[in-house]
């Protein structure tokens, strides 16, 4: 069926801010789909509140709205732009839900807009639990039997019907508390009685227990003619019980025979046909490991994290094909862009093995529970490709950038055998390392399998890696042994450590024996057809198939690896734009990256894509082959910066700011010299290695002080210390990981925090704009609300900031981008607190709101362009006519046990934008974009420190004025009432009911303002209040400044009057 020509203008809805469970994969899918639509001559209107995305570029869509994803906004936008269609299946659950609300309200029909791709009926059938169950029953596809019960008797009879064990899940309890698995009727009665009591609505779900079954996924595509294919299947190494986003996943499945594989494949096609899906779909199964019995766990009728992974694992561009299907094309009409010969209606065949490992944020949330459950916790993931499973696993491990490079990286040797056995049952991010330890102690596969339910096949693969460790430790390192170690991807440094040789010796021995990495192509078809798209992975002991390329200058762009807190999608935005800019300048571009969720690893971004770990050794193997003319490191975050020194040793010129100057900004002493030379003040401080030295410096400076390791991103390990005790604790935490560089201790200045990104060509600088943080210094810049242009700075301060930026950029010989953070105290005292001679988190945001294409500009400068010659006037640019506010977005409810109070360490996972003509409207948009939709019940709780009472009174008065009822803890309540602001005192949580906790759990509170004490706050009270509030969906603010911003936005806005701004028109 050819294209439906009645589709001319399509609204694409994105997924909004990055949160856990909804990350960069939707930017990848959305970008690919928008390009695919534009290729067909369709006018694309894009809506996404996330400014860090590539899809919100004016090159990707015709009209770009970075506005909150709410029903009201979409309605207004549809009225304004009058698209004929909405494509809802690319923006994750957020986009899908929005489209469904509009459809159900009849708005789309009334406005002659239709949903393309999958219909609303289909979405409902797949998303509604009951309808889904009914549909599956109709076509004979099994789902895990379940029933909601309100008394023990019903529970007992249902459990008898479906058989034990059963899972019990009480409705509406905190984090599933009160639930559990019952093996028999006795346990059932016990757990069920308790669960019914705890559940707010007195309901418990009784479900057949399928924990421990194999978890298998299929990615399927279907067109309007009913043609179906499966793109790929995947097997979770962690059995059912761990969210697939938190599981180690392998593609294709490894332990399924053709009978099981085809049985589930046929089932997936039956389901997608019955649901009448047109586009991509993900079907998840639980498969009984000892029979052919299976259950359908879930169906996602849209592109998903799994579909992004499947696209990268196979080379099949799911989102692109889904977009074409939405336009009416059938699978046999869509060319396979990888081969250029075959069509989209064929199933990819892999001749390699893919492993994905989640990137979990426990390094950021030290207090959080590491347990993995059905609630996803990963912020990102890495993928690797090899021709054997062991190698793919080893490559994925070292791609994580979590100080792990082998199965020896976590040490469990101290555990007794009993303890180890006990801990094998623990399902967390270190489980495979404990299994490796168990194998080292000769625990049997059966024993390990019994506890973990992980398939013997995977346990044996871990054993092969452990055996290699032993061989390297005990045997003579012959070329044969080395070859075998490299085949299963042991990195040189690990081989060196095990054999007692140096890394250099291993490297030399490899090269002397011809043991070097070869590269194979991902071609969707297992070499059956010649492929046109160079997408490579490394293997050892095989023939290299990378074609040598000459002629154009070659540039190596180093990506930013997995998405983590502190290094998010912003850096992928920068890497991709830099690649495109180099391409335009006539360069051959080569990207190295390992993140399957990103645009940078799409098959048609660079001339060549190497899907590889970003370690010096892996990069060197590519360099040896490609011999690039230069490498760019300033766009790939800390991941790329860390490779600078190694690249120089390989003889690869660093394009842009030199490594030596990068170092100067990070090395405290060198940097102090530069500041002195430039006559720029900074907070006084010193460098230390031990707690003793730190305390000495701190006492000299006077508390509070800021403590942090050098060379980190996202303020990792950064803390404000108010006394010697804090110092001991913080230095202890920092030194848990061996530090190559000193720890910095600085005087903590409380002032306005200001941030600037600038492009420097060696002579001139260009500052697109000055951003001001709403929260005072002390809260990480990534967690602060950022306002452009700055609202409260004096001209003198602005001038100083521009001048200091110029001096610093010149003095550090910056070529390309620089990011500087300042503190402004009083009217015009400007201090520098941090300088990063590289791209930053704010670059996409500031590019979009100023209309200045910063990354392409910086790229041109890097290859010799001059700001003046490129048509720009140096210096601080004129302020735009809009006010644009970047709002951080957090995923605290996903991480049990994480402390949500803000501080110098970054905790947000994403951001959204509010842009408007007035500050109040911009702020309001930013808050609703971040999901803070108030007021609801007009009840709030305040509990603040004594020193904040004055601020609290002012804020309380304003909330009261718009009708809020204020509850407060005794001290705060007294202060408020004394000042004439009515506050109802509530008991603290350790006191008898009704207390603060009961109030929160009553589900009628809009907001909690809880200001924790600075320093190492060990108050359990505050922690419990904040956790409970977050887990019941109550907004919590931990900074007075944020609270002030919120009330300002609530006072000033009327949702009916929002102005929608097409950002592609911003000059």
């Amino acid at each position, binding site marked *: *069926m050819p294209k439906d020509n009645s589709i001319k203008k399509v609204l694409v809805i994105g997924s909004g801010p990055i949160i856990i469970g909804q990350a960069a994969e939707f930017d990848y899918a959305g970008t690919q789909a928008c390009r695919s639509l534009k290729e067909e001559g369709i006018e694309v209107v894009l809506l996404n509140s996330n400014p860090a995305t590539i899809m919100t570029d004016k090159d990707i869509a015709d009209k770009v709205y970075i506005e909150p994803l709410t029903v009201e906004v979409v309605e207004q936008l549809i009225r304004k732009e009058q698209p004929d269609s909405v494509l809802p299946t690319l923006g994750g659950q957020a986009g899908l839900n929005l489209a469904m609300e509009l459809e159900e309200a009849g708005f789309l029909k009334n406005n002659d807009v239709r949903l393309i791709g999958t219909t609303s009926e289909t979405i409902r059938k797949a998303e509604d639990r009951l309808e889904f169950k009914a549909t599956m029953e109709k076509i004979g596809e099994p789902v895990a039997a379940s029933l909601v019960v309100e008394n023990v008797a019903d529970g007992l009879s249902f459990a008898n019907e479906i058989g034990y064990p059963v899972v019990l899940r009480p409705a509406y309890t905190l984090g599933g508390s009160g639930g559990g698995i019952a093996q028999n009727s006795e346990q059932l009665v016990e757990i069920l009685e308790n669960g019914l009591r705890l559940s707010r609505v007195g309901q418990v779900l009784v479900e057949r227990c399928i924990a421990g079954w194999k978890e298998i996924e299929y990615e399927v595509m279907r067109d309007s*003619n*009913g*043609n*179906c*294919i*499966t793109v790929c299947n995947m097997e979770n190494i962690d059995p059912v019980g761990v969210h697939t986003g938190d599981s180690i996943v392998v593609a*294709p*499945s*490894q*332990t*399924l*025979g*053709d*009978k099981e*594989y*085809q049985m589930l*494949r*046929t089932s997936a*096609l039956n389901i997608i046909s019955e649901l009448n899906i047109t586009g991509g779909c993900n079907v998840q199964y639980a498969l009984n*490991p*000892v*029979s052919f019995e299976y259950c359908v766990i879930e169906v996602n009728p849209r592109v998903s994290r799994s579909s992004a992974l499947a696209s990268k694992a196979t080379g099949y561009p799911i989102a692109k094909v889904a977009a074409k299907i939405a336009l009416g094309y*059938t*699978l*046999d009409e869509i060319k396979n862009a990888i081969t250029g*010969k*075959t*069509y989209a*209606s*064929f*199933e*990819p*065949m*892999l*001749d*390699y*093995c893919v492993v994905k490992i989640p990137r979990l944020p426990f390094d950021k949330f030290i207090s959080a529970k590491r347990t993995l459950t059905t609630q996803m916790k990963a912020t990102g993931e890495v993928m690797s490709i090899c*021709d*054997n*499973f062991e190698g793919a696993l080893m490559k994925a491990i070292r791609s994580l950038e979590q100080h792990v490079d082998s199965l020896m990286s976590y040490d469990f040797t101290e555990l007794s055998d009993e303890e180890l056995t006990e801990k094998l049952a623990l399902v967390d991010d270190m489980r495979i390392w404990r299994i490796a330890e168990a194998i080292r102690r000769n625990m049997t*596969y059966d024993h390990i399998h019994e506890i973990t339910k992980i*398939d*013997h*096949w995977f346990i*044996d693969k871990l054993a*092969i890696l452990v055996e290699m460790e032993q061989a390297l430790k005990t045997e003579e390192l012959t070329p044969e042994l080395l070859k075998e170690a490299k085949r299963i991807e042991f990195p040189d440094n690990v081989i060196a450590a095990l054999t007692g040789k140096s890394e250099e010796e291993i490297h030399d021995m490899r090269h002397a024996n011809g043991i070097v990495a070869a590269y*194979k192509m991902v071609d969707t*078809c*297992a*070499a*059956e*057809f*010649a492929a046109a798209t160079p997408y490579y992975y490394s293997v050892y*002991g*095989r*023939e290299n*198939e990378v074609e040598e390329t000459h002629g154009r200058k070659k540039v190596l762009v180093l990506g930013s690896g997995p998405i983590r807190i502190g290094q998010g999608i912003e850096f992928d935005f920068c890497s991709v734009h830099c690649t495109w800019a180099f391409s335009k300048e006539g360069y051959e571009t080569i990207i190295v990256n390992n993140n399957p969720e990103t645009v940078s690893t799409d098959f048609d971004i660079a001339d060549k894509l190497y899907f590889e770990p970003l370690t010096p050794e892996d990069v060197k193997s590519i360099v040896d082959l490609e011999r690039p003319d230069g490498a760019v490191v300033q766009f790939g975050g800390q991941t790329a910066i860390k490779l600078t020194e190694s690249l120089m040793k390989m003889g690869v010129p660093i394009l842009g700011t030199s490594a030596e100057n990068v170092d100067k900004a990070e090395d405290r002493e060198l940097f102090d010299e530069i500041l002195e030379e430039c006559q720029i003040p900074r907070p006084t401080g010193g460098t230390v290695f031990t707690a003793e030295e730190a305390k000495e410096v701190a006492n000299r400076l006077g508390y509070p002080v800021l403590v942090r390791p050098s060379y980190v991103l996202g303020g990792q390990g950064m803390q404000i210390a108010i006394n010697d005790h804090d110092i001991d604790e913080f230095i202890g935490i920092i030194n848990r990981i061996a530090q190559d560089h000193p720890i910095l201790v600085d005087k903590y200045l409380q002032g306005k925090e200001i941030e600037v990104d600038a492009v420097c060509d060696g002579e001139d600088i260009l500052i697109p704009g000055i951003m001001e943080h709403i929260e005072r210094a002390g809260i990480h810049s990534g967690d602060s609300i950022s306002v452009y242009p700055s609202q409260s700075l004096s001209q003198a301060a602005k001038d100083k900031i521009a001048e200091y930026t110029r001096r610093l950029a010149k003095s550090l010989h910056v070529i390309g981008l620089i990011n500087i953070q300042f503190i402004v105290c009083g009217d015009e005292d400007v201090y520098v607190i941090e300088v990063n001679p590289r791209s930053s988190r704010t670059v996409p945001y500031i590019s979009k709101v100023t209309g200045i294409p910063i990354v392409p500009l910086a790229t041109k400068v890097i290859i010799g362009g001059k700001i003046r010659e490129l048509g720009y006037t140096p210096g601080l640019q004129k302020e735009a006519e809009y006010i644009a506010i970047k709002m951080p977005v957090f995923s605290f409810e996903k991480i049990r046990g994480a402390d949500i109070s803000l501080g110098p360490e970054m905790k947000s996972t994403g951001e959204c934008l509010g842009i408007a003509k007035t500050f109040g409207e911009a702020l309001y948009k930013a808050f609703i974009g971040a999901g803070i939709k108030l007021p609801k019940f007009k009840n709030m709780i305040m509990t603040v420190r004594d020193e904040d009472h004055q601020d609290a009174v002012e804020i309380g008065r304003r909330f009261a004025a718009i009708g809020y009822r204020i509850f407060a803890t005794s001290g705060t309540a007294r202060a408020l009432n004394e000042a004439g602001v009515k506050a109802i005192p509530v008991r603290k949580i350790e006191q008898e009911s009704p207390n603060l906790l009961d109030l929160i759990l009553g589900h009628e509170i809009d907001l909690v303002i809880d200001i924790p004490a600075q320093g190492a706050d060990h108050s359990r009270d505050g922690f419990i209040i904040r956790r409970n509030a977050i887990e019941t969906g109550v907004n919590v603010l931990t900074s007075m400044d944020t609270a002030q911003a919120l009330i300002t936005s609530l006072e000033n806005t009327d949702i009916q009057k929002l102005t929608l701004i097409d950002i592609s028109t911003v000059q």
Partner: protein
Amino acid sequence: MKAFLILEDGTVFTGKSIGSKREMISEIVFNTSMTGYLEVLTDPSYAGQAVVMTYPLIGNYGITPDMESKKAWPDGYIVRELSRLPSNFRCEGTIQDFLEKQDIPGIADVDTRALTKILREKGTMNGMITTDENYNLEEILPKLKAYRVGDVVSKVTCSEKYVLEGSGKKVALLDLGAKNNIASSLNKRGCEVTVYPAHTTADEIISANPDGIMLSNGPGDPADCTSIIEEIKKLYQTDIPVFAICLGHQLMALATGATTHKLKYGHRGGNHPVKDLKTGKVYISSQNHGYVVDDESVNQEIAVPAFVNVNDETNEGLEYRGKNIFTVQFHPEACPGPQDSGYLFDRFMEMMGGAK
């Protein structure tokens, strides 16, 4: 022990010997299926050929009760890696033991992708697997060039006819090297299936008065099956409904005046899209064939193309005019591979007048 794979063009791959240690010469073909190695090994269509598996990890779930015939047929087996420990609830043994017991010589640790690329670029060619380190290329290459697959149908067909009991339609299945699931698919639909050796006369089949005739898949060059073609001509003359798969499809075409030719490197795997020319619907099919019916040689008055391969537009099926005959190049019986076209057995049931 080391083993060597020597190709007709002089390329030598060094690897590790697996299975039988004896030397073998055969035609080297590749299969892209990611699962179903046992079904591939026991598919009689591979008689006279040695198979390269493009998926690098083979044997992961061991040997299961999924054999498509009584024994393994390929002359040789070429893989990247055999799993050390198979794991599956139905696993009865390792593939290593199976290859040895079945006396199939093989080679592991081969860069199967590089090998596949050679076969793709230069076309299917002959090769040798040997464990003799002192092999002499000058002696070997002429032998490789001389190798012909020959009359393999006689080797793989059953020696005597036998019956799978059923209470429904009576189907005569001509075993040209049939995979078990063809008979099972019919049997499951209630048919009584009588399996005949390949060289059974048409008269014998017709005189049994079957409701339908099924021509199976099988190995080798279809044009070599001259005597069988003569018998199929007689079957064509009757009004008995005929359904044919793969070699059977080719033989029916040859029997009615069409020609076949050898593809450069064949279609072997479980991902080939075939389009039903009547409905425009595309099915993913299981395929295993080196030869194909020349579309242009088909007399439009006798038969019309019913299916086409979406990738290379080769013929995938024929519908015979004025006859109750329908033939496909691909494998609706799957095993290994997708079950999407299993509905064709239902269509055959309808051709025979529906289930009894």
